[in-house]
């Protein structure tokens, strides 16, 4: 069980990294946030860059602790949460 005070590690890739202006930030789990969807709403209010990154939420994918996640996926203190566009490798 992670420390309930452990911050979230938020990672951004591709154009989400460019729009937020950061590849990684550490934030405490907000008191009223318990899911990916809730976190996105909270992050989008952090800065104009964040707002721009999350303006079209259907274009954003997420992984929680390196596993693909959905808006309803629950998050816990200490989780690593990554946001990125649909993948385009191969």
């Amino acid at each position, binding site marked *: 069980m992670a420390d309930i005070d452990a911050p979230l590690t938020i990672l951004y890739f591709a154009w989400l990294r460019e729009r937020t202006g950061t590849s990684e930030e550490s934030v405490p789990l907000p008191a009223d946030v318990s899911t990916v969807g809730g976190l996105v709403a909270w992050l989008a209010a952090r800065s104009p860059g964040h707002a721009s990154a999350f303006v079209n939420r259907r274009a954003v994918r997420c*992984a929680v602790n390196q596993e693909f996640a959905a808006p309803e996926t629950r998050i816990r203190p200490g989780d690593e949460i*990554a946001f990125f566009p649909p*993948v*385009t*490798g*191969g």
Partner: protein
Amino acid sequence: MARISVQAADFDIGAEFAALTAGHTDIGGIGCFIGTVRANANAPVSTLTLEHYPAMTERAIAGITDEAEKRWDLLGCTVIHRVGRLAAGENIVLVLAAASHRQAALDATAFLIDWLKTKAPFWKKEEFADGAASWVAARDADDAAAARW
């Protein structure tokens, strides 16, 4: 069993075939796919940059090769995906799948590349000869190809 590598360096196709098949006499066929950086006649790509999510990439690829090994009787498979800046004509990705029979080898190869395209955390940014740059958009056709399996 799969060999997985995410690397900046190019791969040696002949050496990868040799490594996959070494010591095997039960292989009847090996399927292979190589993806390369394609220039476009209208907007020549001067370079492609492959970004990835290092902590997740190999795990995601292993999930895909595990799935292939569940679906087909494979005697080995290899996935090598390059990252970083690549020029037009350079190799991006190598997929190999070995099996006793050709249909399994060919189907697993197509499956692996279809799923890599839609389920492994890589992102391509194109830079054009005129200095413009843009992130490659995901294609519906790739989602459809991945959903066939």
